[in-house]
């Protein structure tokens, strides 16, 4: 019995969901995409007019259940970076995204969960690329093959313009996405149901296919000692909390360490106040996870975007630095969600990873 997390439900992702739904052994599927379908998607994605204007996750969840009503489907219509790690955990991650930044996030998430991931990409008019990775301390990851130029190409949001981090639509033909999805599904089948007659897995390699020349290329990845990614798979200890009544101090108590513990939520920063980029208005919302603030809290009444200036934000919280009032804050008020994994560091012991009430439904 296996589960799959599909991130990105566009050209490739809209095709693979129905293939996954039909695959024997798949009992659950997690769908992640922050967008909705629009008119321009009709030509390149596996949808019909009834999908227009609807969240992609909602449309694809309905397609999956129409094929296999017994499959358990969970959806997240938000960027994958914002979804709690334990809520994404599955046997295999399937990446159908169109930005380096999102791909880099999926690589990190898959490693933390110690689950293999299969990445697919298309480049109009004729190229398809499938990569597969299996996490391990010395296993090749996405970033092992990156040089500085690759990092330079990562998408960046600027405070000086209205940041739109969504990558431009690939506009690759639907058949290319469908073919990439089929190849991805074939690799998924090998991973969840390894059998001698299924051939070799693509793990640790890349398959490139050019439909214009019918040529294919297979390249092996190599682990790089100087890779900028730490390659750590996490052992997550589940700690049950009622987020509405538990306080930040309880989180520190759960760390059960003698030394002054430091906690962090990977990929997130804690902000104490926000400033409007347009009018300069300052809002003192109190300590909270910036990316978990509701959209309205990050929008100034003047219409400008409210940002947390880096110098006054914190990637970690140390108990001894916090006021009693901050320690008394409820975890929901801070922005924590069920499934978040808190990293606890202290001078006296190695890092621990505490999953908040994993298995409970998010509120």
């Amino acid at each position, binding site marked *: 019995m296996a589960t799959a997390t599909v991130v990105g439900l566009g050209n490739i992702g809209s095709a693979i969901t129905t293939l996954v739904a039909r695959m024997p052994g798949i009992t659950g599927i997690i769908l992640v995409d922050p967008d909705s379908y629009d008119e321009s998607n009709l030509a390149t994605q596996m949808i019909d007019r009834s999908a227009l204007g609807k969240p992609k996750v909602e449309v694809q969840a309905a397609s999956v259940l129409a094929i296999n009503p017994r499959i358990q489907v969970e959806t997240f219509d938000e960027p994958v970076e914002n979804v709690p790690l334990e809520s994404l955990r599955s046997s295999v991650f399937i990446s159908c995204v169109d930005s380096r*930044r999102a791909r*880099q996030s999926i690589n990190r998430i898959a490693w933390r969960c110690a689950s293999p991931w299969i990445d697919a990409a298309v480049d109009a008019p004729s190229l398809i690329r499938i990569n597969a990775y299996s996490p391990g301390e010395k296993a090749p990851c996405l*970033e092992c093959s990156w040089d*500085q130029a690759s*990092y*330079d190409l*990562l*998408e*960046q*949001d*600027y*405070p*000086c*313009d209205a*940041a739109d981090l969504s990558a431009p639509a690939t506009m690759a033909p639907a058949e290319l996405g469908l073919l990439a999805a089929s190849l991805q599904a074939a690799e998924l089948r090998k991973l969840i149901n390894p059998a001698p007659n299924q051939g070799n897995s693509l793990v640790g390699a890349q398959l490139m296919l050019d439909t214009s020349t019918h040529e294919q290329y297979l390249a092996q990845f190599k682990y790089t000692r*100087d*890779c*900028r*990614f*730490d390659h750590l798979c996490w052992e997550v200890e589940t700690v049950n909390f009622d987020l509405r009544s538990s306080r930040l101090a309880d989180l520190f108590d759960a760390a059960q360490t003698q030394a002054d513990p430091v906690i*962090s939520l990977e*990929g997130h*920063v804690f902000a104490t106040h926000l*400033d409007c*980029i347009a009018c*300069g208005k300052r809002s003192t919302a109190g300590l909270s996870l910036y990316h978990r603030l509701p959209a309205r809290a990050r929008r100034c009444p003047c219409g400008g975007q409210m*940002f*947390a*200036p*880096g*110098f*006054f*934000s914190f*990637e970690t919280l140390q108990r001894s630095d916090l006021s009693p009032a901050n320690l008394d804050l409820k975890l929901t008020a801070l922005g924590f969600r069920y499934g978040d994994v808190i990293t606890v560091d202290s001078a006296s012991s190695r890092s621990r990873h505490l999953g908040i009430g994993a298995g409970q439904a998010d509120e």
Partner: protein
Amino acid sequence: MSDAIRASWLQSQYVEAMTFARHSDVLSLAPVAGAPPYKYIAEFRCKGLCATSEGVSVIDQHLVGILFPDQYLRRNCSPGQILTWLEPDTEFHPNISPPFCCVGHIAPGMSLLSLLHQLYLMITWQRFTAREDDALNRHACSWARRHLDRFPIDPRRSMLNAPAAQANTAEVANHEFA
């Protein structure tokens, strides 16, 4: 990010930038957190502009906070996460709206010295955006287009004192962090 890779990178940034600052009559750099430091306050003693009730006047002290987030070598962090304009809060420049400032693209792993140089060029109006749709301070942007003859406000191309480029890095490099 591997702790060892990040620590080694931070150490090299510290050595390079502190050595540079010791030989500069424009720049002072104060590490404020971390060993090796990941957070600095940079003070620039050069001519820039600030808004006053009478209009615009020249000032010669500017403070910027610089923070290298944990994933700085891997992720394209927002310039707003890395740079925080501290003083004066009346700084007048198309690319500055305290506490925000925008030096353009900051690639993952861009050196501290490069960031300081970009900031210097910006403060002295050797670099600014003339596009209002790209500006943090649109008023400064339109003002700049009417006063192009005034730029740069500070004409020094380099932050270094005369021949200090041959600076000896040993004393800084040998500094051991706990």
